[in-house]
């Protein structure tokens, strides 16, 4: 086995040299670190990482290979992958291929042998930065020049790169039975999912809840969606800056006017915030991991959540009908909102987890209860936890 050298260069001029452990090539992106100990496959296939190079803080990646059941989308959309050590001999009864083979097959450059802790500390101190991974150009100076010319995330419409081309039905449930689901819907409610880069975990959760699911492209108008006669709409997660997504924001406003139940997740949360007239801002280095404590202000309980976002809704910018429902205990940022007059709520984190703890799955039940009420069933189900 011949080691292929690779370089990682940051826009501040920091150079890390390592070995290639994925596809060869040269790719640019915003560097973010993810602190999850498990779930690299979900990270690799999460469309929200479009435009980004992901650094895993856990040093041993690829241990259990790649399974058939844990893809969060059709393919990886991230620009690159940075690890301390990539495992070539995975071991797990579900493993179907190794992570480096998957990366190579998917055309994602990856670099190993990096002091990922030093890199993480740098990102923590200086904030998210642009970077490049290259296996072709090994001249740090030339790479630095190119990095500095690459686009930044702010203002980029990345959702349109990852959304589906046409609407489609989804009927696959979560692979494991979930206690308390499905809900006792009198009729299967129809949930339309606006796909800004939706993770399959969300779709699977909705199916497991007992919903009929239709996924529609990001640029579907409010009328397009209403024409599908949905009982509710879910605003999906997705990559990057919400502000450039003017058409989806307009569509959401139309849905709000129609008083359709709305549930926003991550980018969907930000878009709901913008649709309600709020503002968003970029965090220094974002939240990416599976261990963020979030308090549900309505129950006082803390859930350990899966997070992946670089932008955040400024809750103070929202109309008074929209209130904060969840708070991140690490930095006090707002993590959820609900509208007092409209059947709409959203969270900044990932109740579908994948990867991460299942503590916030109750939010799907909350969404389901909203649907049950609308369908005239009064005895709503308790918000079961894992």
């Amino acid at each position, binding site marked *: 086995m011949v080691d292929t050298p690779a370089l990682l260069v940051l826009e501040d001029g920091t150079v890390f040299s390592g070995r290639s452990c994925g596809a060869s090539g040269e790719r640019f992106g915003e560097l973010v670190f993810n602190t999850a*100990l*498990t779930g690299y496959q979900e990270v690799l296939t999460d469309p929200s990482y479009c435009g980004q190079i992901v650094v895993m*803080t856990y040093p041993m990646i690829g241990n259990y290979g790649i399974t058939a059941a844990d893809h969060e989308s059709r393919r990886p959309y991230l620009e690159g992958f940075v690890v*301390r050590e990539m495992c070539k001999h995975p071991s797990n009864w579900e493993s179907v291929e190794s992570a480096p083979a998957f990366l190579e097959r998917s055309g994602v450059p990856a670099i190993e042998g990096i*002091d990922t802790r030093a890199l993480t500390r740098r990102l*923590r101190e200086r904030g998210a930065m642009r970077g490049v991974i290259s296996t072709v150009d090994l001249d740090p100076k030339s790479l630095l020049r190119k990095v500095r010319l690459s686009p930044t995330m702010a203002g980029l419409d990345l959702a349109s790169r990852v959304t589906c081309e046409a609407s489609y039905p989804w009927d696959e449930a979560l692979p494991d039975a979930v206690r308390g689901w499905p809900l006792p819907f009198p009729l299967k409610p129809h949930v339309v999912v606006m796909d800004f880069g939706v993770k399959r975990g969300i779709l699977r959760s909705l199916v497991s809840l007992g919903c009929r699911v239709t996924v529609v492209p990001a640029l579907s108008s409010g009328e397009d969606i209403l024409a599908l006669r949905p009982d509710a709409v879910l605003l999906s997660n997705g990559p990057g800056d919400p502000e450039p997504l003017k058409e989806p924001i307009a569509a959401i406003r139309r849905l709000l006017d129609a008083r359709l139940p709305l549930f926003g997740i991550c980018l969907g949360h930000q878009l709901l915030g913008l649709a309600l007239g709020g503002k968003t801002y970029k965090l220094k280095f974002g939240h990416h*991991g599976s*261990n963020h404590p979030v308090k549900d202000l309505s129950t006082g309980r803390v859930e350990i959540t899966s997070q992946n976002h670089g932008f955040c809704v400024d809750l103070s910018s929202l109309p008074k009908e929209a209130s904060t429902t969840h708070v991140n205990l690490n930095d006090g940022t707002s993590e959820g909102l609900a509208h007092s007059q409209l059947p709409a709520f959203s969270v900044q984190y990932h109740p579908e987890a994948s990867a991460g703890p*299942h503590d916030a799955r109750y939010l799907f039940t909350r969404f389901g209860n909203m649907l049950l009420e609308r369908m005239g069933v009064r005895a709503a189900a308790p918000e079961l936890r894992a």
Partner: protein
Amino acid sequence: MPKRTDIETILVLGSGPIVIGQACEFDYSGTQGIKALREDGYKIVLINSNPATIMTDPGLSDRTYIEPLTPETVELIIANERPQALLPTLGGQTALNLAVALAERGVLERYKVELIGAPLDAIQKAEDRQRFKATMQEIGLDLPKSRMLSDLSELQSIARELGFPVVVRPSFTLGGTGGGVAYNLEELRDKVHNALEASPVKKVLLEESVIGWKEYELEVMRDAKDNFVVVCSIENIDPMGVHTGDSITVAPSQTLTDRQYQAMRDEARRAISAIGVSTGGCNVQFAVDPRTGRRTIIEINPRVSRSSALASKATGFPIAKFAAKLAVGYTLDEMSNDITKKTPACFEPSIDYVVTKVPRFAFEKFGKEFPLDTAMKSVGEVMACGRTFKESFQKALRGLETGKAGFEDLPKEIRDSWDESTLLRKLSIPYSDRLFVVREALRRGLSPAELNRMTGIDAWFLDQMKDLLDFEARLEAEKLTPELLREAKRQGFSDRQVARLIGKKESDVRALRKRWDIIPSYKLVDTCAAEFEAFTPYYYSTYDGESEAQRSKKAKKIAILGSGPNRIGQGIEFDYACVHAVQALRELGYETVMVNCNPETVSTDYDISDRLYFEPLTFEDVMGVLENEKPQGVIVQFGGQTPLNLTRRLSEAGVKILGTSPKSTDLAEDRMRFGAVLKKLGIAAPAYGAARSPKEALAVARRLGYPVMVRPSYVLGGRAMEVVFDDDGIRAYAAKAFAASEHPELFIDRFLSDAVEVDVDAVSDGVDVFVAGIMEHIEEAGVHSGDSACTLPPHSITPGMVERIKTSTKRLARELKIVGLMNLQYAIKDGVLYLLEANPRASRTVPFVSKATGLPLAKIAAKVIAGKRLKTLLPPGILKTGLPDLPYAATKEVVLPFIKFPGTDPMLGPEMKSTGEVMGLDVDFPRSFAKAQAASGQALPTSGLVFLSVRDEDKPHLLSVAGQLKQLGFDLVATGNTHAFLTRHGIQAKTVFKLGEGKPDVVDLIKQRNLALVINTPSGKRARSDGFSIRRTSLDFGVPIVTNINACQAVVRAVAALRGTRLGTVALQDLYPLLPYKVN
């Protein structure tokens, strides 16, 4: 919820003496928990019989009882102190069982004491296998099929239902004692029989075997608001079938996908809720079928544990502290993370390194290897952190101090002796050498997949090990370049390993590293994978580039080397001394740097020292830390033999050794030169000689005259020490010893039969010497000092002899220029004082002496080492007058692990075998001895039938023992000879058959539990086997046994003292004011 205000006083139970399955981790947890509770203003009453603990330091709790952990004693203390709450979750299984006993006896209700931390029902649900099973099934968790039984009647049909192998688990035992795996019906019958004996409730669970499955543990916490976090996941390299305490384990889990892991997390959450733990920490164990992924829950421990200590050290998350706070009403979101300061404790730590724990065994002490099974057998452990598995794995292996510099081969002769079938058998039955068997199999070309089938070890770990072998091949074949060496270091190879592979010396590799600037970097254990800034200087080494351990500018900085993994002969006592040294130096304004690799200890708690380095205690690793920190000096005398063995090399490398100089240390360890010193000082020593060949050994022994004491040079805990009685004995010993050692040298001493042995601890500042403790051993010289009970003040030595001991000790301390602690062992025979051994370091008895006298010896020694004069540190006048007599007596008794090693002879000798100790404090020697016996788990009887059988040499003493027992109202029984001897001297006794003479014999008598006490002293050489069955059966059936005639005499005195009165209890805080001097 904020803390509860309806509670003022909390009773905390410790875990008692160190035993296999329960070690320093409960001192660590207890100390942390008590600190946390006092911080909140609670008054703490502590009971723990183990004096060698930081938790029993008088300043830590408000009321400190070093008393037996028995329901009777605890009830007395409850009646006295009237606590409102009892926290039993910090003291291991001992405390949990005790709490259950107190509840069941109605004590808690009678005194209105609330059980906090874990409710009674939760403890019982977790401990009672039947209820556990029912509870888990209710919430839909999968378990191995199982059946509970309390006799042998349905064994056959149950075995058919479960299929072999069958796992045998007795209810309510420590570390799985008495359990095992049976592969056929005959074996099953035996094991169930033993398990029924071991179980205090006489119940045994038989279980479908999940042997060979993957094993996982989750360390979880839950609060009253149902907030739940997993602090750490642990994956065992050893599959199911090997007790988790004996398993090599890794954190975090390595080979589960997120979905598989989260499903396990969900189940752990449901399980802890169903058990009913809502204010504390728990350990939840799972087995996963590697073929199908079927997952079964194995057990829950509703308390802090060895694993939670490991998890705390592995992540930086102080589980015990938070468990204590939850127990008094706080919730997780109300507490902050000490390390990041800004973020809350309610989160799940993320780590960016790999942690490996490797257990350490002590089978060599028992003359027999035991296969690893579901009953724990290891005595200690090391932990290492590395950025990769390979690095942390190799660091842990070299931290183990078993002669391996990493993942290395066993000696060629041993490997060559394994033919293919031997190797295959060794692969299928795990012993303590299993890793090296796997290594040999890899060398011989077996693939990880094949090995996985044979061992059950996940192929992932086997592949990692194979990678290491492949890399070694590169090192051997390629020219060493800076790149190759750096890569070797990144894979955790030590300089010694590299040197061996490339045929150079360790110092050459070290020099190359320096030249090529390949030096370790130090990274932080911060709970959050660098996401937030961390403020706690807790480091591990790696070769990953950026170092975060910036050298502090402080001029006053001292490093203290710890004692590494617990082993027999070097355990918690040395960690205690290290912690005291750190505390003392911090009091003097020094910045302290702690280096240690034992995750169970208080010394590796991150808030003990100013800077903590979790590193193996090898020359290379220690030098790395010292070069990074540049302290003004290093203290090596508190951590036992481990740091002392590094002294010479550190000193040669230019490190300043503080305290007693390396020269003096060498002098004390060089028998010949030391002999000359003794001669010069007029101190007698047993005649001795050294031998470098079997022939020479024989000559020396004959010259000295039998019996002789023989041992290899530089030993610890009497390792391989033996009393030899004749030429045959010396031949056999020498043959073995010279075959096993690389640099063979034997020391042979004239053995002093029937001498009284004395242990002395002293501290010197180079000018003045303070003799702090003169401890008289109960057992005579020849029983290792670490295995002998001892008492302070001495109970039979004449005042004149005490003075001579003091004088000789002072003289020796001055001659050796001791600065700090010194421990001496003397023997007194026929009015002559002999010096047996001098150790210029802290000893096992330092905590005992400190607790007995109220004078913290190790702290005093540390301050002396830092330049303070003794006279400024001791109570005024004491230096001149010497320590006045204590107005009470203190007895130390040991606990022995024989019960864990079936078939071994529970007999004392020159090889140390005890794992821990207890202390009895009372008005006089007999009562303190009785208390120590009760604390050690062998409560003395006050009536009943006593069996007597002693060797001929002891017969003269037997009459007084037997006569007194008679007077005290005991009935006596003896076999033929002894019976005749007693009758001849007018002492009435019943008679019983010896083994083989007829039925029922003495062993039947023991098994029927008709005996209150067994006295059996093994004869010098022959016939040890005759007594073996008696001793072993007594042990297995829980009959108190005394195997030493001197101990018999003490027992008789103690029993006499016990008659008519109950033992009282006393808190240290009430005891010390009785002393004729002031203590702080």
